[in-house]
């Protein structure tokens, strides 16, 4: 019975070796590919995306340094219309260039990323946080401005190359604007003395 049944016994030997090896072998921690959630999480690639978030430049004053100017381009371009923006106005009714209300309905958002593509101020970006389960289906799944606002350091942490490119672009734009302002200031005639 050597040829017949030998494969079966070989198979048994392989699995037995694997079974005991998974307890005693040297490289067993890497061999067991289970990610023990929630203590460990599987690594996600940099380009993965789930829902949008808003970037703030200074973590100490997130609301003040928000990049978003409430231009509402993303609200108009969003295909399922999951964004709702209300511009912040001061006491006289003059618009401050930042949102007062910025709601994203997670149950509607289809994670297409169009809002990111059309934003002219690099203020809305795609997050990759997938732990968004809530205990309700309606109001609990709407994210408001405080939830959406995350600092630039967070953006660098989750998407380093993209954040570096965005920062370089913003710096280049700022330098160009500063150079233009300096050139305009130099070309301007000296101010008239007050009469």
């Amino acid at each position, binding site marked *: 019975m050597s040829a017949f049944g030998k494969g079966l016994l070989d198979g*048994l030997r392989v*699995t037995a070796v694997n079974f005991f090896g998974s307890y005693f072998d040297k490289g067993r921690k890497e061999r*067991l590919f289970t990610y023990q959630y929630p203590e460990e999480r599987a690594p996600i690639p940099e380009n993965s995306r789930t829902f949008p978030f808003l970037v703030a430049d200074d973590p100490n004053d997130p609301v003040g340094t928000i990049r978003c100017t409430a231009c509402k381009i993303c609200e108009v371009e969003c295909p399922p219309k999951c964004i709702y923006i209300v511009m912040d106005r001061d006491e006289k009714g003059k618009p401050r260039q930042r949102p007062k209300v910025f709601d994203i309905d997670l149950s509607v958002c289809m994670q297409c990323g169009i809002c990111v593509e059309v934003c002219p101020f690099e203020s809305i970006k795609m997050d990759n946080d997938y732990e968004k389960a809530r205990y309700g289906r309606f109001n609990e799944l709407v994210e408001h401005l405080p939830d959406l606002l995350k600092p630039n350091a967070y953006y660098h942490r989750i998407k380093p190359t993209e954040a570096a490119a965005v920062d370089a672009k913003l710096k280049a734009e700022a330098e160009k604007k500063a150079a233009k302002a300096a050139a305009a200031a130099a070309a301007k005639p000296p101010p008239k003395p007050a009469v």
Partner: protein
Amino acid sequence: METVYKWLKNLATGAPDWALLGVAMLVAIGFLLAVFPGVFAFITWAERKGLGRIQNRMGPNRVGPVGLFQPIADGLKILTKEDIVPRRADGFVHFLAPVVAVVPALLALVVVPVGAGLVAVNLNIGILFAFAVSTASVLALFMAGWASRNKFSLLGAMRAVAQVVSYEVPTVLSAVVVLMVVGSLSTLDIVESQRGWFGWHVFKPWGAIGFFLFTCGALAEAGRTPFDIPEAESEIVAGYHTEYSGFKFALFQMGEYLASLAMMSIGVTMFLGGYLGPGSGPGVLGTLISMGWFFAKLLAMIAVVIWIRGTWPRLRVDQLLAFAWRFLLPLSLINIVAAGLWHFIPSKPVGWGVSAALLAASCWVLTRLNGRAYIEKRSYRLTS
């Protein structure tokens, strides 16, 4: 039960007989009902951990230390699931089928001696009774498939019935060998006949082949891999228990595992020496040691069955039936002849040699004859 009855009689001499008998019966039944479903729960945990480690992943490790309470969590989950019965299903038969699946397995455990003198009922026809009630579980498969009013369930049920009925024959014939040599159908006599060094029947040539035949038959009757076509996850939806959910499904699983436990216990009794082992004998300590031996052997068999499940692929249904009718059945008949030769040839070494040679030769011949059936290439008529 008789042991408990005698012990109680020694303890409480004034009590009436029927009370002592009733208490002894309750103790015996309670032991069976508590221990073997407990072993079933343990097997579910061991299977998940064992298969996980074989497959380079961890099994359950959240509920309790190393996941030991996972069966409790599973039980609670399945108890709280909604019990869906299809509207056109035959309600009465649909309800009875899981019951008919579980009860024969529990009945077969009644004649298994778990320790020295500890058998629930010492029937004269012990082994025959165990096999008789095991065959009654065929009806459950059929009832489940029929009552669901689902063509796929029925197909799965027919395949399951064909498989169980085919494998009953070599199983019973391999048990016949043991009965021939022992001369009695009672399980206690069978175990007692295996006393002595290497006295277990599995160490004799007909016993080794008989153990192999019996294990194949037991695995196939319970529907475990590699014979789990009726209920494998990737087969005909879920076979005969497609339309079952909630506790009835759990009862089917329990029935399957309990049937395999019952058959393995009978196999341990007949071939592996039951509760015999160094240190098992009369007296309280000896009885406890004998119980330990029995459960150790049973757990060893369970470990091997789980190991086999994690290793071998599934047999196709025609390969399954061919294996039963073309390999196991002739081998079991030749096994009977070999056992007869072993028993009746006056000189022991010649008897051993003749029967071992006969069995080895028949194994070789049968594998050569069946070889083509296994590795034949399928021919497809519609392609070139």
